[in-house]
């Protein structure tokens, strides 16, 4: 078992840190104020070759490992910015198209999502459900060489940005099927973005599909087998989310240390007080445990293992663990932590999101618990 990171991985982390400093942190205040991410940030990610990293070169990716992606995301996450999440969404969407798409779909849809010209999306959630695939109502009816999609998708990140999205709908047999949808199709419209607690600029819109024609060849995997695609997608997404949690947790600790070393309480720095030292120690231990488990699941993904249960277990552990880290960070900052002038305020809000997106923490418990109950090993 080798726990050392390669030179290549370390250099990637460094490059990600420089990118975060130069390109994200500089514009973060503006993003918060305007609740919008400037379009050119996408080209910057493309130039840094951070889009579709796990996809082979011939389709526009760079053929990197899941672990490298996780390490980069962890670094970007320290900004607490929605911009950091962009890369993750792109990775998981193109990876899904790559894994399940025909050669024709791969060639048509992946390169423009890797070169920064188009934006991805993944649309599962609906007004009626975000957790239960059997409850979705968006329909896909065959019509000649097309399917015609009707329905409403809710909370779709970047659903309004020109590009392609993976959409889940029920076909004529009431089975969930995954389609690649061109977001500039006729009948494809959107709401104004939801205003969120955190993640300013995320661009979360509802999508209205009215007789949207999608060519039959745009089906990913087999017709009626969209649920498998969703499960595989979401497992990878969970690991990426947890890399964000680790990065943000680390930044909570860093900010707390900076603050506590300088803040004088009863004539001495807060870090001299045992109570706060204990809090810092617990934060550190929580982050380390979360970090190494996240790396472990990413490595399993690289080894080609099914990570459905591992990633669910990881999420149900990391989400509350890092949320507690953020809570402690706020306590250490006192009222300053409740002010927007301090980074901890934003981190706290951003850290609240992974527990209720891409499957809530509770659902992970159901997933892991039922897998344990089904297991025949004991």
């Amino acid at each position, binding site marked *: 078992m080798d726990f050392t990171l390669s*030179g290549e991985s370390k250099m990637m982390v460094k490059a990600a840190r*420089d990118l975060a400093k*130069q390109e994200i942190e500089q514009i973060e205040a503006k993003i918060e104020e305007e609740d919008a991410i400037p379009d050119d940030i996408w080209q910057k990610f493309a130039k*840094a070759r951070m889009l579709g*990293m796990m996809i082979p*070169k011939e389709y526009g990716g*760079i053929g990197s490992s899941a672990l490298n992606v996780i390490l980069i995301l962890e670094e970007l996450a320290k900004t607490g910015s929605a911009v950091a999440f962009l890369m993750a969404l792109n990775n998981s969407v193109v990876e899904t198209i790559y894994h399940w798409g025909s050669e024709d779909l791969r060639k048509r849809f992946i390169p423009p999502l890797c070169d920064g010209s188009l934006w991805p999306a993944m649309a599962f959630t609906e007004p009626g459900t975000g957790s239960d695939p059997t409850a979705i109502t968006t329909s896909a009816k065959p019509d000649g060489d097309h399917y015609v999609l009707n329905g409403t998708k809710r909370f779709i990140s970047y659903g309004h940005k020109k590009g392609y999205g993976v959409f889940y709908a029920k076909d004529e047999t009431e089975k969930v099927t995954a389609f690649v949808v061109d977001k500039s199709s006729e009948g494809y419209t959107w709401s104004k973005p939801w205003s969120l607690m955190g993640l300013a600029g995320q661009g979360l819109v509802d999508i209205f599909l009215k007789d949207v024609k999608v060519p039959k060849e745009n089906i990913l995997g087999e017709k009626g087998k969209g649920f498998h695609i969703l499960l595989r997608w979401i497992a990878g997404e969970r690991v990426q989310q947890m890399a964000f949690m680790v990065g943000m947790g680390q930044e909570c600790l860093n900010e707390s240390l900076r603050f506590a070393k300088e803040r004088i309480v009863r004539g001495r720095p807060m870090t001299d007080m045992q109570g706060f030292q204990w809090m810092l120690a617990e934060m550190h231990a929580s982050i380390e445990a979360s970090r190494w488990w996240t790396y472990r699941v990413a490595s399993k993904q690289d080894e080609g293992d099914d990570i459905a249960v591992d990633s669910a277990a990881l999420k149900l552990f990391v989400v509350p663990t890092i949320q507690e880290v953020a809570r402690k960070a706020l306590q250490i900052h006192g009222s300053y932590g409740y002010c927007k002038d301090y980074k901890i305020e934003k981190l706290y809000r951003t850290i609240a999101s992974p527990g209720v997106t891409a499957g809530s923490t509770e659902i992970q418990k159901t997933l892991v618990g039922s897998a344990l109950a089904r297991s025949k090993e004991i």
Partner: protein
Amino acid sequence: MNIVVCIKQVPETSDIGWDPKTGTLIREGVGGILNPNDKNALEAALQLREQHGGLITALSMGPPQAEDALREALSMGVDKAILLNDRIFAGSDTLSTSYALSLAITKIPSFDLILCGKESWDAMTAQVGPQLSELLNLPQLTYATVITVNRNSVKIKQKLEDGFRILEASFPALITVEKEINQPRIPPMDSIMEAYRDKEVQVWTAEDLVKDKKHFGLKGSPTQSRKVYSKKVQKGKVTILEGEPDEVAGRLIQTLKQKGLL
């Protein structure tokens, strides 16, 4: 246009200790990074290559871990990387460093320019570039904030304490660059992978440079540190000056003058 860029790995933090006995920096346990100013030299070289073509060789003298600095240069896009590594190089001052680098450069088949950072952030002598040009008998263009290459000559805008100068020299020449010359590129992820997987860092030893080794390392270094010590920082008291703005400003200036700060 073929360019050699001399780069150095420096300790990651400026807050490092000294060995009171030998007077050298304690590098153990401190991570190394590519000297920030050398990144400007690399970036300048890459931009010149984009305009005029050619090959870029990055050259570094240092311990085995300095290979990381060269891998970073490869990630940024240089074509070749050479590490001068030998135990005998240990303890080199700027003169014996320049000496070793100059010997290595004479072994590089052809070059039109040598680029160096102005200074390294651990030692900050700004001596290696100029010494190297003397040893190689090349024109030296120091403190460049702009480089323009013409057909048979190279021009720089040199930053001086109280202004700028335009200098011009024929090829080959040596240039040291200021940090404001450019914003170094962030290496793209695919290029990092190539730098580690597909590219080579050649390692040259003292033997590869010259037979007579007396000018290398500690022995070849005329500079010896007698004594090193950290500056003691004493915290003063805060004085709050009160009164009318004009009067307070006057008193402030007076106080600063008294303390020798103005």
